[in-house]
Every structure is written in structure tokens, then in C-alpha cells.
């Protein structure tokens, strides 16, 4: 079997060397999050787009994960896979990890959690709040006590700044957010709308282009070539093997 496979590959190599698919899906991960990657730690900078990334944007591999904070599979992916990946392949500059919000209508508090996260991310507290939300998902998904866990993840002064970001954000589920309010938020108008909604909607718009059908969905880009999206939980050893295979190209 191995010999036949090898022969098949040799034939294909000689016949199809010039038939490499064009980089039609080639995209630069140049989004708001990417653009501001190097400002991740500058919490004192003027508030701009929330930075929801780990690592360096110059890493050869970019992994975008579309998640809903109330989704158990997203928590599993974070707890069992991404938590192992971050100190290893992200820290060593091999992978640039981007979080994208994709709150699902079926989850009561998913949208609200995404708002808190974006508010925290605007003051450079994304990583602490993401960990706190996933670690305590079972608790806040029952009663919506997101604020308590966000507060516990940072200093009181930082939490005050996050709270100020949340002004105008009434409780809304993903399903109940009004399109008109979203349009207003996307247009950048200050007013009655929640200021962080526009960031969530930007992520959702990116997800709809893929299209994201479930969470978690991950999109891997290697040297500018976007690979087909994957979904569900993938264990770290298998993901690592894939990254190693990509890096050896």
C-alpha cells in the first residue's frame, strides 16, 4: 500500500507541479485585531479597537478562533488545547492566535460575555478576562453573573475603566440585538448604543464570510494562504502535528 501511495505521489508530483491551486483565498490577516497586535500590552494607550490576540502577528501561522463564551465546546478547546498551545507555539513565535467573537443566539449570556470581554480587551485585559470567563463558564452561564468574574480578573481601577466601556449596554442576548442599533453602532455613532457591540459585529461579519456554522470554528492561515476552516474540538497533540507539518513546508 505504501509503495503504491508513494508511486501515486511521484506521478502526481511530476504531473501536477504546475497545477498548484492559485491563492484565491489568500488573505492577509490584516484586521483591526491584527493591526493593533503590538499594542496589546499598552493598556495606557488611547482606547481603540479591542486587542484579542496572543503572540506576534509576524508568526508564520495565524489561527483565528470564532467562539461563543457560553459554548461548552469553545471552553473545551480553550482549556484543553489553546492553553497548551499558548505557552508553547505562541510564545515561541510560531503561531499568532486571534480570538473572534461569534455569540450564538441559542446562548442567553453569550453576547453579554462578549461585551465584557471586548470592554476588557480595550484596556488590555483580554487574556485575563478570557481565562476567567472560560474557567467560570458553568457558574455565570447559570445566572448571568459575568460581571463578578470579570471584576475578579483585574484590579478595581481597571474594572472601573471596563465598567465605563459598558455604559449604554443593556442586557441583550445575541438574538435580541436590534439590527438598527447594530447599524448605528457599526457606523460609529455615539449615543444610546453599546460602544462595544460594533466590535462583536465586526467579528461576526468576518465569521459570516467564512461562513461560520458552529462554534468553535478555526481558520488557519499559513504564509498568507488561508486554509479551509475547521470546527469542533481538536486536541493539542493533533493540532501540534499539523503545525509541525506546515512549518516543515
Amino acid at each position, binding site marked *: *500500500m505504501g509503495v503504491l501511495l*508513494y508511486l501515486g505521489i511521484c506521478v502526481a508530483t511530476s504531473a501536477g507541479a504546475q497545477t498548484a491551486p492559485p491563492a*484565491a483565498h489568500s488573505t492577509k490577516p490584516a484586521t483591526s485585531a491584527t493591526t493593533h497586535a503590538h499594542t496589546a500590552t499598552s493598556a495606557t494607550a488611547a482606547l481603540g479597537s479591542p486587542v484579542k490576540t496572543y503572540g506576534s502577528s509576524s508568526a508564520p501561522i495565524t489561527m483565528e478562533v470564532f467562539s461563543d463564551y457560553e459554548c461548552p465546546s469553545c471552553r473545551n478547546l480553550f482549556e484543553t488545547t489553546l492553553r497548551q498551545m499558548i505557552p508553547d507555539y505562541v510564545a515561541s513565535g510560531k503561531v499568532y492566535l486571534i480570538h473572534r467573537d461569534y455569540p450564538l443566539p441559542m446562548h442567553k449570556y453569550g453576547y453579554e460575555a462578549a461585551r465584557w470581554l471586548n470592554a476588557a480587551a480595550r484596556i488590555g485585559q483580554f487574556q485575563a478576562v478570557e481565562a476567567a470567563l472560560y474557567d467560570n463558564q458553568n457558574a455565570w452561564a447559570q445566572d448571568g453573573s459575568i460581571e463578578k468574574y470579570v471584576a475578579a480578573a483585574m484590579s478595581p481601577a481597571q474594572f472601573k475603566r471596563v465598567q465605563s466601556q459598558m455604559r449604554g449596554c443593556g442586557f441583550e442576548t445575541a438574538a435580541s440585538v436590534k439590527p438598527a442599533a447594530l447599524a448605528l453602532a457599526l457606523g460609529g455613532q455615539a449615543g444610546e448604543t453599546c460602544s462595544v457591540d460594533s466590535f462583536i459585529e465586526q467579528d461576526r461579519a468576518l465569521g459570516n464570510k467564512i461562513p461560520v456554522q458552529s462554534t468553535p470554528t478555526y481558520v488557519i492561515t499559513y504564509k498568507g494562504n488561508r*486554509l479551509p476552516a475547521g*470546527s469542533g474540538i481538536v486536541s493539542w497533540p*493533533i493540532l501540534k*502535528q499539523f503545525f509541525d507539518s506546515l512549518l516543515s513546508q
Partner: protein
Amino acid sequence: MSNDARRRWGRILLIVGRIALAAIFLSAAYAKMKPQPGMPWTHGSVHTSLSMFAMGVDSYQMLPPWAVSPFAHLLPPLEFLLGFWLLTGFGLRISGLVSTALICAFVAAMYSAYERGLTISCGCFGPGAQIGPKDLIRDGLLFLPLALAVTIGAFLIHRKSSAPSLPESAPSATHAD
């Protein structure tokens, strides 16, 4: 329709059926093994595609971690060989049985993932849409009956062709008088 004509049509249908079945397996193998966008056809790029398929296999959460990668690296070549085997028509009863068993296993895996509420890609023909009734119908009501029909047809034709034929001098009903 005479017995000869019926037998000829049976053979033609069997050929069409096994070519269709072969095409399914070959296209499934190709979709899993073809290089990712921007990569040429090399041993390394095929390995990368199979590693990506391993991620899809892992998302089914059915195999122990140590078995995921070997399975993902063996299945597409197996599908490839099975497709060629079906095309040759050699030992069709066995290749038909193997095809049927493989499709049964695929349907069972997909049904299990669907029942467990896993929102994952089927991975049957490379990365694609989320598993749903459409995939179950396609595999369960289209591919599986096709594989079964080819297998049963292969057994029937083998039985007929291996049945002892009557000697030409033997009296038949029309010669009774």
C-alpha cells in the same frame, strides 16, 4: 426479455455501479490528500493535508488520541486503493464487501457525531459543511445502497456463471415431444 439479455443488462449495470462506487472513493481520497492552497504536490504537502484530515478525525471524538493520526494517514490511501480495485473489477465480491463495510462505518460515525450534538465538519470529501441530515441521507440512502447493490450483483453474477451448465444433449421442455 431473454435470460441472455437480462444477464447482459445485469453485467452492464454492475459495471456502471462499480465505476460510480470507485469514483466516490477516488474523489474522497483525492479531496483528503490534495495539497492545501498555495502548496505544490509533494510528499510533504500530502502529509500536511493528511494531518489536517487528522484534525477532522479527532473532532469526531471517537478514537483514542494515539489512533487518530495513524487512522487519518491510512484511510485516504485505503480509499484510493479501494477505488482502483473497484475499477479493475477484480474480486468484485470482496471489494464490494469492503466498500459496504467502510460506508457502514462512515454512516455510523456520522450518526454518532450527529446524535452527540457535535457541530463538526463531516470531512468525507475534505473540509466542508457541518454534519447534518444531508450527509446522513447521502451516505445512508445513496452510497450504502449503491455499495450493497454492487456487492449483491457481484455475488449473483458469480453464482450464475459458476453454476454447472446443462449438457447440450440434455432433453429440454421444448424437445419433450
